[in-house]
């Protein structure tokens, strides 16, 4: 085995200075947790504020006369519904309707879009996008290395970030964004996130990342009992799972369609895009499986890949399973046959050879109070 050199975000030194435990995540050297630990990081984000380096995500510019038409051709959601300063969640799909990646599409103007894709898939996404642009009047640029992305999440995210910017944050609606300055640094300030909390994702030039990161920690009162905490990938995962948000490679993949993953709401099947025919057919013929949420009722923790049973019959597989630190339950997502998705139904999870009872529940498991 040759050892591949791990990629680093521009905040790598900051993570080490903060005592982050670094792991290989999809080829990136990233903090899985800091000394406070995953549970503390998770709870602090739910109750106060958490800070996440998500600079490993990929950013792609799409500009030109056909920008909207092109991204509409590539993605399941309808970009023509977006107004300037608005973003939406969407998916890149193959002809057969399975997923290349899930992404955010930002509209800066009628001829200027900005795509934010996953870390581990960005090279594949870029090639996919490039290979389809010949018939469109667009220019694309892979800007992944140019940007840092810092997510500040939690009920206090707005008040903390407001200390560092003149942009009126309360005026930015959910899934909208503004171009402004944070601590004097040019930034895109987007009211989005992956935690189920209110909060922002801030994009800026990567060389400015340390200044922004340190200032956000300072503004959030890092070090005090209720102050902001830097959060690692483990907390990012448990937060998104409590909110039942999909993670590529788990609930979405090149073997799974968005319809199966309960993402019909991002598939505008009356529009034309790569994979739309396959998805229309799947919708018409009915799904073979559907994503559900479950809670363990026996003592035990379901993990990714564990088999799901109904009595003696194997009915599916766990895509994500974990303790839920805020809910204090053991939860998971799994694919099961569509006729077995009713909340309250008992299923069993094969936890390393033991069949433990679980109950299907409505998702999201956690929904913040507004």
């Amino acid at each position, binding site marked *: 085995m040759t050892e591949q050199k791990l990629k680093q975000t521009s905040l790598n030194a900051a993570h080490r200075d903060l005592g982050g*435990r670094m792991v290989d995540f999809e080829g990136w050297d990233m903090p*899985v*947790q800091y000394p406070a*630990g*995953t*549970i503390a990081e*998770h709870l602090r984000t739910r109750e106060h504020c958490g800070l996440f380096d998500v600079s490993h995500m990929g950013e792609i510019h799409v500009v030109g006369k056909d920008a909207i038409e092109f991204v509409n051709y590539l993605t399941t959601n309808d970009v023509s519904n977006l107004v300037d300063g608005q973003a939406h969640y969407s998916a890149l799909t193959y002809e057969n309707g399975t997923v290349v990646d899930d992404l955010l599409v930002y509209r800066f103007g009628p001829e200027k879009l900005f795509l934010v894709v996953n870390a581990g898939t960005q090279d594949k996404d870029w090639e996919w996008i490039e290979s389809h642009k010949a018939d469109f009047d667009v220019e694309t640029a892979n800007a992944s290395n140019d940007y840092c992305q810092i997510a500040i999440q939690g009920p206090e995210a707005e008040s903390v970030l407001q200390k560092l910017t003149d942009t009126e944050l309360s005026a930015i609606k959910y899934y909208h964004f503004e171009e402004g300055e944070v601590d004097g640094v040019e930034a895109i300030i987007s009211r989005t996130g992956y935690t189920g909390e209110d909060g922002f994702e801030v994009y800026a030039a990567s060389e400015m990342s340390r200044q922004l990161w340190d200032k956000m920690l300072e503004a959030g009162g890092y070090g005090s009992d209720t102050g902001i905490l830097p959060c690692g990938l*483990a907390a990012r995962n*448990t937060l998104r799972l409590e909110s039942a948000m999909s993670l590529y490679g788990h609930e979405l993949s090149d073997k799974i369609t968005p319809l199966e993953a309960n993402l019909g709401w991002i598939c505008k099947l009356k529009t034309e895009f790569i994979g739309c025919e396959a998805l229309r057919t799947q919708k018409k013929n009915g799904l073979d499986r559907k994503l559900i949420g479950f809670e363990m009722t026996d*003592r*035990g*923790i379901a*993990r990714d890949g564990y088999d799901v049973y109904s009595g003696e019959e194997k009915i599916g597989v766990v895509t994500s399973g*974990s*303790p839920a*630190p805020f809910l204090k339950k053991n939860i998971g997502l799994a694919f099961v046959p569509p006729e077995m998705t009713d909340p309250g139904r008992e299923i069993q999870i094969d936890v*390393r050879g033991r069949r433990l009872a679980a109950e299907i529940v409505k998702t999201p498991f956690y929904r913040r109070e507004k």
Partner: protein
Amino acid sequence: MANIPEELKYSKDHEWVLVEGDVATIGITDYAQESLGDVVFVELPNEGDNFNTHDAFGSVESVKAVSEIFTPVGGEVVSTNEDLNDAPEVVNDDPYGDAWMVKIKMDNSGEADGLMSAEEYEEYLKSEED
């Protein structure tokens, strides 16, 4: 640096053993709990269960992962720490004290002599880190 009490014996799987007569008290080391992160679940065997040396006798789960625990000595389980059912986080707080996991009556009371001393375990950790 991980805490490694002088009076205990250690296994390569990061269990510690305290020998009193023919009974071995077993838990996981400070290094092990630190590597796992927040412990949220501990699964232990039943009293009366028999295990051979190196058998998995239970598991410790953190938010992120499951880790099996192996017995460094063979014998019969005479006692388990049921407090860990309700307070698994004790494994992080006090791995060598309140978070002992099982007591095993050893088939061969000399077996623990073959385990690492504190000094040897410290060397072992250093070699693992490299």
